[in-house]
């Protein structure tokens, strides 16, 4: 009996830490979410002196959202979706092709070339964003969607993810097809890819969210307002509409809801992509 009480008492600090961490994680989001559905004056008055209503969407209105879309925010969402989906499709193709070769084909200098892939994900994208501007300038793709999509297509981490998965596919399966006269392309397309759905989901999710969240490169590469992606549009929205908090919050909610809706049902796939580099042998 006493040991049970002691165990419960010992658990209290643990739950207290977890509870406070949860509040810290969620309260700002709850506040942003509720404020986006409120008229501006309530947003302000609920925090000028604190009221619990700050976390509730009352009085409810969609005026912030309609004003936001009237100001052309829809275009930024569309741009980001186009960039995200193009990167996803091209990235899956380019990375899985390379990973297939690294996992299953023998060719000279393979290991050296694979080290290049690994080095590429040691150098974060932000580190090279400024010189990349000059490269994009020379390729004449600045201020186009190509400038946003192309640098995101070959991703070292995604190649690594596919390679790990492909290495788990038994060689006997491929050998049998090879003896039947199938080409490498056919083996890749007809046997390997259909077997790799989990890796395809992880990679697709990772590539899409990478583009949805990227900020510094789109900020540098795109000057034209109508080509802006959502994250950059939000940063400008904040400076332009500094007084219209509810509109900025509406933009924030849209920008946050899309990745959250993708990540939550596909949680394990996304976590797989994140943990792969740190843990896997």
């Amino acid at each position, binding site marked *: 009996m006493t040991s049970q009480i002691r165990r419960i008492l010992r658990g209290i600090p643990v739950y207290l830490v977890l509870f406070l961490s949860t509040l810290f994680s969620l309260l*700002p989001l709850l506040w942003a979410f509720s404020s986006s559905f409120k008229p501006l004056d309530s947003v302000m008055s609920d925090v000028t002196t604190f009221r619990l209503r700050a976390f509730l969407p009352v009085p409810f209105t969609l005026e912030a959202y309609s004003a936001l879309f009237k100001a052309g925010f829809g275009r930024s969402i569309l741009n980001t979706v186009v960039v995200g989906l193009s990167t996803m499709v091209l990235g899956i193709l380019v990375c899985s092709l390379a990973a297939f070769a690294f996992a299953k084909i023998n060719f000279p200098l393979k290991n050296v070339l694979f080290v290049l892939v690994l080095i590429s994900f040691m150098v974060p994208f932000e580190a090279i964003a400024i010189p990349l501007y000059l490269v994009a300038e020379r390729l004449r793709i600045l201020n186009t969607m190509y400038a946003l999509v192309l640098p995101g297509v070959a991703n070292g981490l995604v190649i690594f993810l596919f390679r790990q998965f492909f290495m788990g596919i038994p060689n006997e399966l491929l050998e049998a097809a090879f003896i039947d006269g199938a080409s490498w392309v056919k083996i890749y397309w007809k046997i390997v890819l259909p077997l790799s759905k989990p890796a395809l989901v992880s990679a697709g999710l990772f590539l899409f969210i990478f583009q949805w969240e990227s900020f510094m490169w789109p900020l540098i590469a795109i000057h034209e307002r109508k080509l802006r992606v959502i994250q950059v549009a939000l940063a400008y929205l904040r400076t332009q509409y500094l007084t219209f908090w509810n509109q900025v919050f509406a933009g*924030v909610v849209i920008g946050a809801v899309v990745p959250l809706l993708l990540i939550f049902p596909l949680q394990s796939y996304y976590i797989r992509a994140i943990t792969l580099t740190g843990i896997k042998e």
Partner: protein
Amino acid sequence: MAGIPQGLASNKKAGLARPGFIKRRDYSSGYLFILPALTTLLVFRFYPIFFAIFKSLYQVSFVGGAREVFVGLQNYASLIRDGTFLNSLKVTLVLNAFINPIQIAISLLLAVLLNSNALSIRIFRTLIMVPLGISLAIASVIWGFALNPHSGLVNSILGLLGIPPQPFLTSSTQALWCVILIATWKGIAYWMIIFLAGLQEIPEHLYEAALIDGANSWQCFWKITLPLLKRVLLFVTVADTTANFLLFVPIFTLTRGGPQMSTNVLMHEAYSRAFVYSDMNSALAIVTVILAILLGIVGLQFKLIRTGE
């Protein structure tokens, strides 16, 4: 980053494990399959690095029409005497001296507390992970409002506790701490997930044996968890330091380096020189310095872990 030696090892192992597979070396197919990925990596990842180093040795001269002239290490020499650059180097180092230990300690603590399959713990885990889906730009915008000195959420909650309103991002002594707060809010879930994956690799029976021997959970953490988590810890330390060394989004969105340059990190200084003051060559010298420091950090941390073994 810790993936490198491991990746190589497993690659070698895999090569030996299937001697029977495709005896003919297939040169052309192999290269054709990796060609698209390799080309884009070379053009968009590696070429910019060399371009940065190369261009940092030039300076635009306006004598007889604007053109670039080779100046050797002169851009670097002027950086050493440049107060703004030295300040941004200092800000970056101070930021990293605090933010990395803070983020690693909190995410490791949460991972240890959340490493259980009990339903209540699983609910907490899901809720604490929510910021994972929020981009740093969005996190910065939300926190920018929350930390507003006049009508922000944080001051309004502090008011409940009887604490007077704070200036936060508008104060040169508090702004950097606000940046740390925002990046930590966003970053913790990510590192926590990696720690959790590492913790799940530690066999349960080690703890059971230790408990039978009368060890308490504090001793279990120091004697079992931490030593077995060393590789994951190294990976997180290197990756977290790298990410924070390049921290840019909250500073660009909220402070633009201010007040009084107190949040002007290296990345922001490089960005300003390149795109605000149109001094691209000097910006690229800073980028090269950043890349060199990153290389040093990664190398040093690998060396530390090796001597520790």
